[in-house]
């Protein structure tokens, strides 16, 4: 069948059909009898919570996973994909959520690795320049990937996929790491690909995006298909209900909150990174008051990790008074003394940083609790006290686990995150610094965690939340500051913090130019 023929009678013939796809890992069903039809010239959304089986399904379509049962049909013919190269040769391309890029190689080399290598490197580079110009996705082919921003890295992934001239493009949560403006640019590209007659499969859990962009949506829950619907006829709430299987409680701040004195101060902190790919912190200053939540927004890699390390004491500051916790200069103190001052820290990485994966929860409770929570008696570990801490956290935060004191690694992401956040909050810290509190956590657990942060600030603590999720920050923060290239903007009060304004700051625009832009729009 020639290309023209297939195009002419494929007006309503599916390009790719997945029929009854089942993938079993031991007794666990990652996909359970999932069927989905993808049509040319259509953007199809694949919705679901973490662990609903979205990634398994698309990896099957890309040949990375062999299904236990079920089949794929490509243009009506049954196919068995032997691997990604096979999928690519048929015209299936994929943009991964966790970029499949090589940091120390150049842009052109990264693109070459995603192609079959049938053309010379020079010819490939020329075509790369052509494609990136055509679609308005500028890239410098000679730059190494580690020098690029997250948005630019995603551009590489997309250009690499487009270089294959795919009939079907799969995008796994492409906007998770983009600023709102970058996301808008991406949507323009996706609309154009759709108008070129390509099929797009778009994985996301941002429902407003899906409503705006997609023609069809398939919703997965617990490995099973729940529904296929037209997102434009659904509301975000109705789709959320299908994803979660229940209504999600709204988080509410306690109304009467007394904003008191600044309990956490960062004063003109400059710090050089300790790894060659890190970010310089430049003159970061901010005050977090008791009774408020201060949000720090920004695209990943703009200095948030370095700031967290400097606040938690994993890295010491150049000057003693760069960080002040409840009136005590803490810049030269390490983690434990800072905890003793009443501070608590929740790092971004759950396994390996927030917890020791192969240790029990009680031992993990001890790791942060020994400083200030009386878990050590005369130099010996007080086992009952550590177990009590686990039980208390389990109860207050609804941590679901198989036994009383399992290994940290055996918990699901959401439950482990509830444990880590709960472990710190139950100590009633005066200052809490938390990074990406709900990253990769299901909606139910995220609501529990956000509510707990609000309640803690309501009791008079100062809470600093570093997050990439703008919606989350707008939902819970009193003020929001933005990190860009290692500098921190002035905090904006929530009432004035629109997505547009924050997005511009995340892209590095100076505050004055934002005012002008707003003015121009107003006029």
């Amino acid at each position, binding site marked *: 069948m020639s290309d023209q023929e297939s195009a002419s009678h494929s007006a309503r013939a599916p390009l790719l059909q997945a029929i009854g796809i089942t993938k079993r890992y031991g007794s666990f069903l990652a996909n359970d009898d999932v069927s989905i039809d993808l049509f040319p010239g259509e953007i199809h959304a694949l919705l679901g919570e973490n662990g609903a089986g979205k990634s398994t399904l698309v990896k099957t379509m890309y*040949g*990375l996973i062999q299904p236990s049962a079920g089949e794929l049909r490509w243009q009506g013919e049954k196919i068995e994909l032997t691997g*990604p190269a096979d999928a690519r040769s048929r015209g299936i391309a994929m943009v991964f959520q966790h970029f*499949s890029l*090589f*940091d*120390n190689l150049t842009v052109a080399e990264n693109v070459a*690795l995603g192609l079959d290598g049938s053309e010379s490197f020079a010819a490939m580079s020329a075509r790369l320049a052509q494609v990136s110009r055509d679609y308005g996705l500028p890239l410098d082919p000679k730059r190494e990937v580690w020098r690029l921003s997250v948005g630019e890295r995603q551009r590489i992934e997309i250009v690499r996929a487009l270089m294959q001239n795919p009939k079907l493009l799969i995008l796994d949560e492409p906007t998770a790491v983009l600023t709102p403006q970058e996301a808008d640019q991406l949507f323009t590209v996706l609309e154009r690909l759709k108008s070129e007659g390509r099929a797009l499969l778009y994985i996301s859990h941002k429902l407003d995006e899906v409503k705006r962009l997609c023609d069809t949506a398939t919703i997965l829950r617990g490995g099973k298909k729940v529904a296929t619907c037209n997102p434009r006829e659904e509301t975000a709430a109705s789709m959320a209900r299908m994803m979660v299987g229940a209504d999600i409680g709204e988080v509410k701040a306690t109304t009467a909150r007394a904003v008191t004195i600044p309990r956490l101060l960062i004063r003109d902190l400059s710090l050089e990174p300790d790894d*060659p790919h890190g970010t310089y912190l430049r003159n970061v200053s901010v005050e977090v008051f008791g009774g408020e939540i201060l949000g720090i927004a920004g695209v990943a890699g703009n200095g948030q990790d370095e700031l967290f390390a400097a606040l938690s004491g994993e890295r010491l500051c150049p000057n003693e008074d760069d960080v002040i916790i409840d009136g005590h200069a803490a810049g030269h103190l390490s983690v434990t003394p800072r905890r003793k001052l009443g501070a608590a820290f929740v790092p971004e990485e759950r396994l390996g940083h927030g917890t020791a994966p192969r240790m029990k929860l009680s031992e993990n409770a001890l790791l942060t609790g020994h400083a200030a929570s009386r878990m050590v008696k005369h130099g010996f570990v007080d086992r009952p006290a550590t177990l009590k801490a686990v039980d208390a956290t389990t109860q207050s935060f609804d941590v679901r686990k198989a036994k009383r004191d399992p290994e940290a690694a055996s918990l699901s992401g959401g439950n482990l995150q509830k444990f880590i956040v709960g472990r710190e909050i139950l100590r009633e810290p005066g200052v809490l610094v938390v990074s990406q509190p709900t990253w990769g956590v299901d909606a139910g657990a995220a609501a529990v965690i956000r509510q707990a942060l609000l309640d803690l600030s309501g009791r008079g603590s100062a809470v600093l939340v570093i997050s990439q999720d703008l919606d989350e920050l707008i939902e819970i923060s009193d003020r929001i500051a933005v990190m860009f290239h290692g500098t921190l903007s002035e905090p904006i009060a929530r009432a004035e913090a629109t997505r547009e304004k924050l997005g511009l700051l995340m892209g590095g625009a100076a505050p004055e130019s934002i005012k002008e832009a707003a003015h121009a729009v107003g006029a």
Partner: protein
Amino acid sequence: MPIVEAIIISVIAASTPLLLAAAGELVVERSGVLNLGVEGMMIMGAACGFAGAYLSGSTFVGALCGIAAGMALSFVFAVLTLGLAVNQVAAGLALTILGVGLSGLIGAGFVGQKITPAPHLYIPGLSDIPVVGKMLFAQDGFVYFSVVLVIGIWWFLYRTRGGLILRAVGDSHTSAHALGYPVLKIRLMAVLFGGGCAGLAGAFLPLAYTPFFIPGMTAGRGWIALALVVFSSWLPGRLVAGAYLFGAVSILQLHAQALGLGIPSQLMTSLPYLATVIVLVLISRGRGSTGSVAPASLGVVFVPDR
């Protein structure tokens, strides 16, 4: 003049085994595998190389035996670290211990025997050039091969698609896997290549350097080769410079001792190692500006998810 000539010739001879072994290890580490068993593979190459040459009477056969022995030992390492996902540091150290012991056993019957050393190959035309000709173009086959090998490795890494894939696997095995490259197969090839190079480097010692075999004759050269790879920041060009710098210092200290400068010989013997440490420090200090860093996946065990 003759003494300078003699020094240069002996520097080349001292540097060649380091260069051979380090070149192989560079390819292995570029693929993201850290094989600390170079010393063990070298000494096995020395024992088997000598045995092969003694029994067959041919240096070439001996060299092939050395390569085969190094590869065989590296295959054991590959089975452990790639097949069974064992910790690479532990497996590499075990490999060295195994190699040292096994080579003593294999070589026991050959201690005290002598063979004819590898013939010097005169390159027609070039070897007749006064002064330089005899120094550079009248070497044995190992020396020429080591130079060709490093150039070949450079060309492979930076000019071929295969080299690009190898570097990609070393940089991020998860990304390479996601794009459909057979990570473990590529690493197996690299490990076997490194084993062959280490075996050849070991075989050079009894076949060309000294025409007899003694147990433990590699005397830590495998460890120096490992250090040289870091020293070169995984760049083939710098590897040549490093190997020759080290070779030169280790020969010059011998001559300095012979001159009787009154410096304790132990101190002189430690000079090459001291030089390595100093250069390592200097290189790691300048790392940020040159951007040359270790392959990001170096030493990390990879288990494909299906």
